[in-house]
């Protein structure tokens, strides 16, 4: 058994991995026992489920000190995979610097403007839960509610958010049929979830003071003739809570939601825990970070799709079939493309990954130089498909 330093006087989760946000001291306690890891008195499992020593149900609150989307997605995934939620629930709150988060089964080429994202330094990421695409910045608060699969209840989590915000700021929040939180008919929160065998989580966004012009710009994809069966986003008009209530801020909401969540627990000795998603605190998290920021997860995980060129015509001349982010096949239809070009195109594109290397190959290729002017649009579309930067 290895015992890490522990400075907290509270035997509860408050001592688990708390640091003051923006701050200072690391209260940290960790026990390794074979494959089992124990943080404070929160039981987690790395090989099986270990129940609490007592039967008290607990509500824990973690707030991430990180504003990096990949670190926060990794921490969310780590908690989902390692915690035992049989007798405890957890509210994890986190914010990110500008980024777009697409749903697990979505197509980034359909959902976002990849060129504008690159230009504006906005990161792209893919989460594990279902649902549609969202834009995040530090004016948005994400709330992940973890529980056992049996106690998973999306509506009650949303009601809890509505009640606590209503009681503090008198906001007239309601829950829509799609389980979005709505204010004056505008969406202020979007929801998605992931359900496993033992554990489940429901997470939602809360638009407090988001850069809405960037949101509009980035979530506006160019139509390039993609045919796919990936999950489509349902677009809704959005509103910042700040527009209705000028005093509200992300930090205040964290305090209000966190304290309200703890108050509803039968064991109230806990406090808000500000945590660093580091390898030291969460063994194995670095591997998760790498997998979330990896091209293969963000782009390669896209359900297979077909690009029909030229876009909008009933009879396309060229069909590009993409699977796992790689050009699997090219179909030249109607023999409209000269054979010598079609061979060169195939040589250039077939079995290539849609990434920066292919982007550079297309830029330096002479195939398009001698083709008809109308084919310059094909080059643009191919370059757009290859605008798949990763951090």
């Amino acid at each position, binding site marked *: 058994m290895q015992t890490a330093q522990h400075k907290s006087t509270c035997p509860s989760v408050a001592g688990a991995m708390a640091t003051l946000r923006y701050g200072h001291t690391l209260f940290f306690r960790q026990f390794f026992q074979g494959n089992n890891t124990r943080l404070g008195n929160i039981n987690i499992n790395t090989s099986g489920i270990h129940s609490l020593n007592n039967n008290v149900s607990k509500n824990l609150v973690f707030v991430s000190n990180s504003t990096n989307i990949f670190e926060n997605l990794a921490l969310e995934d780590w908690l989902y995979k390692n915690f035992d939620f049989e007798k405890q629930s957890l509210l994890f709150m986190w914010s990110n610097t500008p980024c777009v988060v697409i*749903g*697990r*089964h979505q197509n980034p080429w359909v959902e976002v403007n990849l060129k504008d994202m690159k230009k504006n330094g906005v990161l792209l990421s893919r989460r*594990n*839960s*279902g*649902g*549609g695409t969202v834009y995040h910045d530090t004016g948005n608060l994400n709330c992940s509610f973890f529980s056992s699969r049996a106690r998973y209840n999306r509506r009650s989590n949303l009601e809890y958010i509505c009640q606590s915000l209503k009681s503090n700021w008198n906001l007239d929040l309601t829950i829509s049929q*799609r*389980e979005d939180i709505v204010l004056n008919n505008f969406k202020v929160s979007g*929801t*998605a*979830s*992931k*359900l*496993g*065998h033992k554990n489940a989580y429901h997470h939602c966004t809360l638009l407090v003071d988001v850069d809405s012009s960037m949101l509009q710009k980035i979530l506006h994809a160019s139509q390039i003739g993609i045919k796919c*069966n*990936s*999950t489509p986003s349902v677009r809704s008009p959005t509103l910042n809570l700040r527009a209705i209530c000028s005093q509200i801020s992300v930090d205040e909401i964290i305090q209000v939601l966190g304290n309200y969540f703890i108050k509803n627990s039968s064991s109230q000795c806990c406090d808000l825990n500000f945590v660093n998603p580091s390898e030291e605190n969460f063994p194995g998290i670095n591997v998760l970070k790498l997998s979330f920021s990896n091209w293969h997860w963000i782009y390669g995980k896209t*359900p297979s799709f077909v690009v029909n060129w030229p876009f909008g015509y009933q009879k396309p001349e060229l069909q590009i079939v993409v699977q796992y982010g790689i050009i699997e096949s090219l179909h030249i239809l109607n023999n409209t493309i000269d054979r010598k070009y079609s061979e060169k195109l195939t040589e250039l594109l077939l079995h290539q990954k849609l990434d920066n290397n292919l982007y550079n190959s297309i830029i330096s290729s002479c195939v398009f130089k001698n083709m008809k002017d109308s084919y310059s649009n094909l080059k643009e579309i191919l370059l757009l498909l290859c605008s798949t930067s990763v951090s």
Partner: protein
Amino acid sequence: MAVCVNAFHKCLRLPTTLLKLRPVVHKLNATQITRTFCSTNALTARKYTEQHEWIDVQGKIGTVGVTDYAQGALGDVVFAQLPDPDSELNQMDDCGALESVKAASELYSPVSGTVIEKNKDVEETPALINQSPYEKGWLFKIQLSKPEELDALLDEAGYENHLKNTGH
């Protein structure tokens, strides 16, 4: 056996083999019903997991899907991520996901083995899982590497009991 009879009446969407029997069964007395169900169970040999997957084994090949209860609880499935052929799976491995109403539900393999086929129709039209969970909505076929794992899975009566006991 009483459980089977209850299950029969409770089931909203029955496997075709049972559906075909339905009008006949109504005319029979209790003893005959019992006999009918024994033979039906022997014919289908479908096994279930507590996570609501079913597996129907013919020889060494098992066809896997989710139960009628599962499809009802999921709601309209909008995307099915299925394991690719040649994937090696251990029993209870997370091998895909079904997405419905903004939730991704993990899919588990009821047995160990090698995936030999996935249902491309379901990938194309995920609603088949809702419309026909036991037939057109099957998910993947797997060559069993440890057929003995089947012994620990639930039979139809056991699964119905499990649903009852967990309040469904």
